[in-house]
């Protein structure tokens, strides 16, 4: 076994060169990259955690808003129902009133027609009675006098009808 100092020194220098080259070309860049990636992942995890917290908070807000909206909606529905009932009542009252007015109007019209018809019939009856009386008596008769005399009888007949 030959142990030679120059060869040992050569190997030490050779190893030193390899250490230097690998440090510069391999270890430092790769370690830097790994650290950067690690930092990036850490930041992303923090961001994810913050986003999760935000989401949780938003979920709670959403839940609260939904609950409030449901309450508001229920109140609106209740109010609407009340309004609807009130309007229904008003409409029914108006309709009843209109109907009553119509009935009253029709009654009045019927009464008027009745009066007119009775008047016409009364006149026609008086005219006939006057004509018959004139034929029986052979003299002219005043229709007014006959009408005066017959009024009570006619009224009695109408009342019986």
């Amino acid at each position, binding site marked *: *076994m*030959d*142990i*030679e100092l*120059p*060869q*040992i*020194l*050569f*190997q*030490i220098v*050779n*190893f030193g*060169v*390899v*250490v230097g*080259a*690998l*440090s510069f*070309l*391999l*270890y430092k*860049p*790769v*370690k830097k*990259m*790994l650290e*950067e*990636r690690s930092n*990036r*992942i850490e930041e992303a995890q923090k961001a994810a955690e913050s986003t999760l917290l935000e989401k949780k908070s938003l979920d709670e807000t959403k839940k609260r808003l939904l609950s409030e909206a449901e309450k508001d909606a229920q109140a609106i529905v209740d109010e609407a129902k009340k309004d609807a009932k009130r309007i229904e009542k008003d409409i029914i009252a108006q309709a009843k009133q209109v109907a009553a007015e119509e009935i009253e109007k029709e009654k009045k019209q019927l009464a008027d027609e009745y009066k007119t018809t009775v008047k016409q019939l009364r006149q026609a009856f008086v005219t006939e009675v006057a004509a018959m009386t004139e034929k029986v008596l052979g003299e002219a008769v005043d229709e007014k006098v006959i009408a005066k005399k017959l009024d009570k009888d006619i009224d009695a007949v109408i009342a019986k009808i």
Partner: protein
Amino acid sequence: MAASGPHISISAEQLFSVGGLNVTNSMLTSVIVSGLLIAFALWVRMSLKQTNRPTGVQNVAEWIVEGLTSLVHSVTNNKQRTDLFFPVIATFFLFIIANNWFGLLPGVGTIMVHGQGAAANEVVLAPSGVTIKHAAMKVQAAEPVLTTQELDEHESVAVENEDGAVLYQVESETEAVADAHVEVGETEHAELVPLFRAGTADLNMTIALGLLSVGLVQYYGLKYLKLGYLKKYINFSSPIYFAVGILEIILEAAKVVSFAFRLFGNIFAGEVLLAVISYIAALLAPMPFYGLELFVGFIQALVFSMLSVVFFNMATISHDEH
């Protein structure tokens, strides 16, 4: 040339010299492994993208870095110390495992070249421990002699150049397992050695790593505990502490030896095991041992790194904290 057994050498073989430095096959391999690691790192650097779903090489790189970081952190339990120790520990692990596993690749230990002094163009491709039964020899002598000859069993032939000088002696072996192609380019014969050898199967490399680890232990100790760290070694408060200090110094030296020989021993033993098994039965028998060596390569890298980080961490904690 006609080896009769597997090629086994306890020390790395010299390929050539650069200046005063003898370049061995394990040094060549460790430089190649370093280049591959740096190329991988460069590839990762160019492929990095800011994404939450990494794919491909980035995924692999992140897996490695994260795994090793958590390994270091499991010992230190301190982010600052983890960041400080990580580059060295991770490189220990990657460098050792890559060298261990590179030694298991086909061609490592089997591509033979002539060692220093041989012609650079002499290459023999044959498994380790192969013996030549029929050698087709192309002999290019100093000048023009070109010979091709086939050998019968138990035959030996001497290849000569035009002046009649013996260039090369080739002997046939009866227990031969493969043919080989031999090219001799120069008149001088040189020993054939593997072109590649696992970096960690060289004691010089493992000593270097052990020295680095123990040296860094002292550095981190001084960095964190300042001069108080030296009390561990030099303490005159009582004769017992003084003796303990000397033992601590011996212990630090023993750590280097322990680091170096454990790694070298395991990897070299694995290489020897594979070479012997391949020599005995080349086809399927080595496969389980390759699996075992992959595991051993991983475990040794892990053991070296873990021990280093434990020693680093212990050095940065004062006795009071203990």
